[in-house]
């Protein structure tokens, strides 16, 4: 799976970083998400899916590329 971020929409709420801290962090200066691992391992799928699902601005997507 591959994580895709829509930076137009991201406001740096940080929900993704608390769902899957291995994959997401928030840059406080920019208040934007930083993707630490664009192709996270399968073991993290549930948590990455939760990050996508609970993103307040729907800025995250998962593709199977």
């Amino acid at each position, binding site marked *: 799976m591959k994580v895709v971020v829509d930076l137009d929409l991201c406001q740096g*709420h940080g929900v993704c970083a608390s769902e899957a801290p291995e994959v997401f962090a928030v840059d406080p200066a920019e208040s934007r998400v930083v993707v630490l691992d664009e192709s996270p391992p399968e073991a993290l799928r549930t948590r990455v899916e939760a990050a996508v699902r609970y993103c307040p601005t729907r800025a995250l997507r998962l593709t199977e590329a």
Partner: protein
Amino acid sequence: MSTAIPRLSGGVPLLGHLLELRRRPTELLQRCRDECGEIGELRLAGQTLVMLYGEAAQEAFFRAPDEQLDQAAAYPFMKPVFGPGVVFDATPEQRKQALRNRSLRDQAMRGHAEGIARETERMIAGWGDAGSVDLLDFFAELTIYTSSAALIGSEFREELDAELVPIFRDLERGTDAIAYVNPYLPLPSFRKRDRARRRLVALLQGIFERREAAGRKTQDLFQILRGIRNPDGSPRYDVDTITGMFISLMFAGHHTTSTTSSWALLELCRHPDWMKRVTEELDALYADGRDVSYQALREIPQLENVLKETLRLHPPLILLMRKVAQPFSYKEWSVEPGKMVGVSIATSNRDPALFRDPERFDPSRFEPGREEDRSGFGYIPFGAGRHRCVGAAFAMMQLKAIFSLLLRRYEFELAQPPASYHSDHSKMVVQLAQPCRVRYRRRAASAAAAA
């Protein structure tokens, strides 16, 4: 050059379509779509409002940066409610800061679920075995307590009483669209609004002062905001500004959740098959005697779909607007600065291109395989894009917590003819029109034991 934007028929001199917006807003917004198509222009007193319809046009609206489409100037009816220095009176940067509200963060949310369950218990403690209740009165009061406890702090909530209920009702009823002419006209509803706000400021300041005098330290939003310092060490926000922030937070989370709770219960009563499904789902989920916890609240698919369908058919906000600050173009049309652009939640949520049989209450449209809310710019009860409601997750959690409790304790049925329940659209804040009573009866012992 750009193509002329179609103008909506009707409207009267001076006020344009304003009276129609106050009387029948959903019909007006649908009529504009039917007559004009993807883009259509109407007039609200001295303002021109360009409505955008359909997923693509709505996406352009929601993606536009604040510098181009400004939220603040589009809602003149909110400014007297929130007061100076708050939300729509603040700069985009200040707003961004304030919106990164910690009480809506995921970690904080875990504690809120229990608090909401507790408030619901308190509200129904005196219900007895059977009776009837007015939904607007009940949910308006319940959500005052849940919102203030969760968003501001539980100690703060304990210092409030039922006086807050009429205060918020007057603030909410003070959102007449006539504010597009002038938000300070000498109207009874505006006078009540201003009186309510003054009373609320006095109440909150009393609480703050008692607390500061006693030197009590509570880790709630008030304390957090008071603790934010300027580089020179002085407090960033004074008590007055914090009061305004509280009003804005409570306002955003109150009437919206209250109305949605009422409509969800009504739709469940009107659709016994769904009432049965959701009740069984909750009974199974809580069968092991677990508390209403955050984790449990995350996945209640049938209830969640009922709530989403309720929000689709009865969105608590029906029209979103922005003021054009820099030229805004969509396809061959362009809108010059000074005009407003708008998106109709009410129309989009019933768009037959997005929803099969859109007038029908059918929560299964959100189930895996159908997922009619798939695109983020068509199903928009919480708005979309960078300004999508920051409280959406909190609101869903709160609704799930309330219904987890109510539906396990009591059975409900309509106390009036089904068609008599309707929304009052005379103000920009939509509320259920009264009377709106339902009857309740305590569930049989076996079910209650599980609850």
